[in-house]
């Protein structure tokens, strides 16, 4: 019934005319009847009218039935409010803009939070997916970083064959390969997945099929990974390289010089956990070559329905001893070494694995932006209070004419809600623009970036936020200025008496709240700036990343057979690169710090270190990080040589048993870097002793936040440092580095490519600068810093505007008082100080409250800080000073106007 009425309200006009025509028809008919009975036309008309009754009454009754009082009132209030807004355009624009800014920022951040943190992953039944994480607290920051320990091939085989908790389970590893045969050789991102991996994610192929176990090829010594005669394409690569042609299934591509059959294409938007790839290959392990070590593979599993993570953890824990008992690291090694690692499963939901690192950041940013919204609301409430004061006469008049208090509050609220909705609408536009900017920048550390959009939930959030905030800022003035004493105001309108303290109370409280919140935000931003500063003082182990050109090159066995030839070719390329004009030096290594390639395939990435002069008493020496470096690597990278010297090419080609070590390892083993020179070490009992010829400064391999692992640097070719250790083995996946002023420029990149191709034209070159890598590792901090800085400056601005508004209003209300004071001989300076003191008093209370709140709240962001405590004294000292200075400025400006008051005019104006 109510619906019928509501709908009719909107077709009121039409129904009205329809009624009219019905009535005319009815009348005409009655009249005709009367005429037929023999009445004269006039009498007939009169008779018809009598029978019908009063037409106006009928119409009135009809119209009443077409009306709903509430909607009518709403409509009336809405039009009234719009008129009032037009009347005071500046006010409206300021309020709507303030709200739009606040709501827009909130909507934008919420849509990021929603897309990244709240929406489920885009895999089928995502809640069953877990990341196979383990912790190894005993591994001394070696294989275990903050992310925990990943799997080795033997672990994967053990878990895949013995588990009871998983429906399917797989591991993956990201690397790069070369596609040749079409145009320039291209370096592509390729991900190896085991046969259980795609079934675990359960995303069907867009064309063709998944890998099956039967796709695995023969063994490929010395690698633990078997041949892979088949590949799958990503959607993007399929479109880019093959134009989305469906007939590619069954065709071959040449990857790493071997033709491989394309068996399938994955759908658009498919991502492997956090990574994107151009190609997929089937990762199958050579059981005979699998060792305990080789922690190189990330695992994903789908839980059996109904299985909890705790049950799955227990299942994994059961399998760890099976793994240790079933495999070894080869003759002469001791499997018990891993017992000291205390490996324990720590499965986590796949979603947490993907978004984990930014969860804290995003919530902190969301909270920050929410606080900015509160400040914006306080500001708008303040403006409305001022306006309500001005409109007091009008409100009193309405009350006097019989409007109930509820009706007036209601109409003021309608006005606020209209303002709120206008702000919200504009805010959505701002949010949309903001998101476009964000996507264009594409913060490197933000996962699921491609999924971010303004969806229905975000729009709903925005509407609710607009309504809530309108009620919040609208209710304060509405209740304050419609109190029982409202009629009393009628008499005193126009008086500019000193305003009582009580009248100021609400506004002062609002300003205090604003200042307090602004202080909290400024402190947070200050802490991030300090964090950034302390990160900048960390020596990462390389210098001037802008001038460091890097490129990753893979010397595949089919292009360059034989370890000695690989090394010779690498030496040639290094020389060619060094001879490019403007190049200071060039070199290569297994990888640069923070490059994030995980571990290097085909060589040992860590192992125990035995020393000749100090045998380890426990018999199970801890594992150390193993890296590989060419002569000149440290000079080129800018890693400081602490003692000794770098290797020479003569030594490398002669396969001399020499190593370099990091400063922390030297100090741990021999006390000082200098003492380490000339000492001997090895990693297996049956290989010759290697002489330590140099010690270099510690390098933050895993990012500036994580401490530098103790590292051994081996020559790029060695007869001993490979998993099989039978013949000379050269590292085939290397990062070349070139130091030059011209790094990153197009002309320089061309010269670099030519230099590489002059040695071998089938090598792919994919360059980047160390700056990109370094910035990426700083990205979480810089992202948070930028967001907090934006929020804090908005807060500061709004807070200052709030103080300015209150003081300048106080000045205008107290003109009469100022006039009297001036007439009685008050000095100008004294008058100014009076108002500045007022502002300072407000700010002082706000700062005091804010400091308390900040001390509590900033603890929540301690995971984002580095090198300082959440109670960093400098930040807590400087921020209040900034706020106080801003306050003085904000109250001094209106105070100056007070002084300009002419006493005669002020007193005579009544």
């Amino acid at each position, binding site marked *: 019934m109510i619906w019928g009425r509501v709908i009719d309200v909107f077709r009121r006009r039409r129904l009205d005319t329809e009624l009219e025509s019905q009535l005319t*028809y009815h009348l005409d008919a009655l009249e005709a009847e009367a005429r037929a009975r023999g009445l004269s036309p006039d009498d007939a008309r009169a008779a018809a009218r009598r029978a019908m009754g009063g037409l106006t009454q009928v119409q009135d009754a009809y119209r*009443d039935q077409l009306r709903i009082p509430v909607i009518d009132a709403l409509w009336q209030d809405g039009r009234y409010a719009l008129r009032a807004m037009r009347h005071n355009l500046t006010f409206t624009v300021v309020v709507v803009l303030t709200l739009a800014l606040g709501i827009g920022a909130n909507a934008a951040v919420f849509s990021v939070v929603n897309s990244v943190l709240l929406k489920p992953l885009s895999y089928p039944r995502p809640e069953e997916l877990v990341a196979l994480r383990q912790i190894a607290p005993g591994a001394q920051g070696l294989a275990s970083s903050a992310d925990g320990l990943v799997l080795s091939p033997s672990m994967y085989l053990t878990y895949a064959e013995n588990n009871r908790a998983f429906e399917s389970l797989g591991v993956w590893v990201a690397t790069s390969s070369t596609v040749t045969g079409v145009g320039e050789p291209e370096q592509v991102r390729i991900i190896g997945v085991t046969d259980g991996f795609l079934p675990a994610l359960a995303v069907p192929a867009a064309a063709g099929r998944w890998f099956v176990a039967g796709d695995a090829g023969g063994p490929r010594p010395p690698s633990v990974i078997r041949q892979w005669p088949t590949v799958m394409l990503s959607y993007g690569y399929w479109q880019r390289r093959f134009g989305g042609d469906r007939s590619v299934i069954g065709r071959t591509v040449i990857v790493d010089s071997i033709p491989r059959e394309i068996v399938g294409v994955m759908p658009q938007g498919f991502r492997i956990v956090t990574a994107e790839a151009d190609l997929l290959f089937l990762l199958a392990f050579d059981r005979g070559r699998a060792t305990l070590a080789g922690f190189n593979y990330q695992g994903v599993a789908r839980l059996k329905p109904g299985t909890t993570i705790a049950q799955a953890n227990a299942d994994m824990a059961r399998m760890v001893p099976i793994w240790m008992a079933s495999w070894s690291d080869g003759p002469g090694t001791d499997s018990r070494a891993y017992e000291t690692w205390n490996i324990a499963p720590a499965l986590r939901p796949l979603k947490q694995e993907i978004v984990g690192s930014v969860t804290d950041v995003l919530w902190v940013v969301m909270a920050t932006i929410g606080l900015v919204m509160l400040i914006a609301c306080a500001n708008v409430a303040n403006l409305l209070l001022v306006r309500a004061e001005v409109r007091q006469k009008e409100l009193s008049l309405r009350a006097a004419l019989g409007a109930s208090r509820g009706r007036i509050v209601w109409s003021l609220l309608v006005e606020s809600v209209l303002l709120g909705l206008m702000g919200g609408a504009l805010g959505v536009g701002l949010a949309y623009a903001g998101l476009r900017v964000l996507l264009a920048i594409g913060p490197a550390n933000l996962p699921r970036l491609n999924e971010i959009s303004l969806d229905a939930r975000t729009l709903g959030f925005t509407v609710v936020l607009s309504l809530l905030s309108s009620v919040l800022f609208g209710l304060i003035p509405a209740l304050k200025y419609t109190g029982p004493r409202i009629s009393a105001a009628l008499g005193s309108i126009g008086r500019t008496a000193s305003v009582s303290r009580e009248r100021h109370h609400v506004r002062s409280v609002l300003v205090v709240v604003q200042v307090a919140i602004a202080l909290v935000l400024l402190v947070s931003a200050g802490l991030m700036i300090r964090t950034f500063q302390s990160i900048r003082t960390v020596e990462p182990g390389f210098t001037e990343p802008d001038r460091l050109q890097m490129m990753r090159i893979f010397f595949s066995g089919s292009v360059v057979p034989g370890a000695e030839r690989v090394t010779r070719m690498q030496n040639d390329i290094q020389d060619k690169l060094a001879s490019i004009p403007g190049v200071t030096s060039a070199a290569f290594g297994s990888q640069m710090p923070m490059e994030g390639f995980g571990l290097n395939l085909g060589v040992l990435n860590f192992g125990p270190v035995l020393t000749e002069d100090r045998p380890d008493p426990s018999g199970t020496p801890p594992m150390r990080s193993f890296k590989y470096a060419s002569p000149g690597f440290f000079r080129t990278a800018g890693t400081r040589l602490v003692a000794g010297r770098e290797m020479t090419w003569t030594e490398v080609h002669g396969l001399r048993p020499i190593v370099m070590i990091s400063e922390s390892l030297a100090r741990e083993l021999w006390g000082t870097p200098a003492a380490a020179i000339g000492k001997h070490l090895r990693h297996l009992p049956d290989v010759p002793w290697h002489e330590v010829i140099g010690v270099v400064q510690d390098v933050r391999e895993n990012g500036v936040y994580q401490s530098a692992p103790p590292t051994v640097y081996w020559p790029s070719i060695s007869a001993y440092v490979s998993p099989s250790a039978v013949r000379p083995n050269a590292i085939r996946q290397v990062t070349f580095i070139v130091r030059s002023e011209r790094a990153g420029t197009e002309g320089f990149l061309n010269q670099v490519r030519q230099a590489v191709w002059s040695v071998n034209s089938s090598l792919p070159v994919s360059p980047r600068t160390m700056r990109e890598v370094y910035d990426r590792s700083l990205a979480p901090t810089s992202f948070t810093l930028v967001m907090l800085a934006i929020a804090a400056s908005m807060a500061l601005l709004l807070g200052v505007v709030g103080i300015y508004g209150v003081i300048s209003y106080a000045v205008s209300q107290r003109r009469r008082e100022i006039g009297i004071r001036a007439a009685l001989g008050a000095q100008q300076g004294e008058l100014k100080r009076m108002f500045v003191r007022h502002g300072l008093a407000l700010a002082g209370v706000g700062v005091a409250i804010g400091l308390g709140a900040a001390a509590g709240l900033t603890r929540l962001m301690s995971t984002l800080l580095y090198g300082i405590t959440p109670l960093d004294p400098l930040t807590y000292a400087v921020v209040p000073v900034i706020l106080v200075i801003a306050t003085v400025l904000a109250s001094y400006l209106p105070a100056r106007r007070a002084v300009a008051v002419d006493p005669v005019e002020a007193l005579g104006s009544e």
Partner: protein
Amino acid sequence: MVLRTLATMGPQHGLGLAKRILQVSESLLDLNQGTLYPALLRLEQRRWIKSRWGVSDNNRKAKFYELTARGRRQIREETENWELTVALMAKFLAKPAGER
């Protein structure tokens, strides 16, 4: 009453309804015929009747009203109610008559 009339006569326009009601009540009900229209609107808003424009006997445009399923249900309920009321009233009224 209006519903009842519509139920027996099928779709009708305002004039026809007024005439019919006058007829049935044998002019006992001397209402202004105009009051019919607000009542029709109320019934329509309650979804008991629906209306559409049509052409009358004398070829003029007129709005025809007809019952909806909901309206029929309403008649049934109202009739039952009324009969119950009548029965009740009859009992009460019969008693004093018997005493007298």
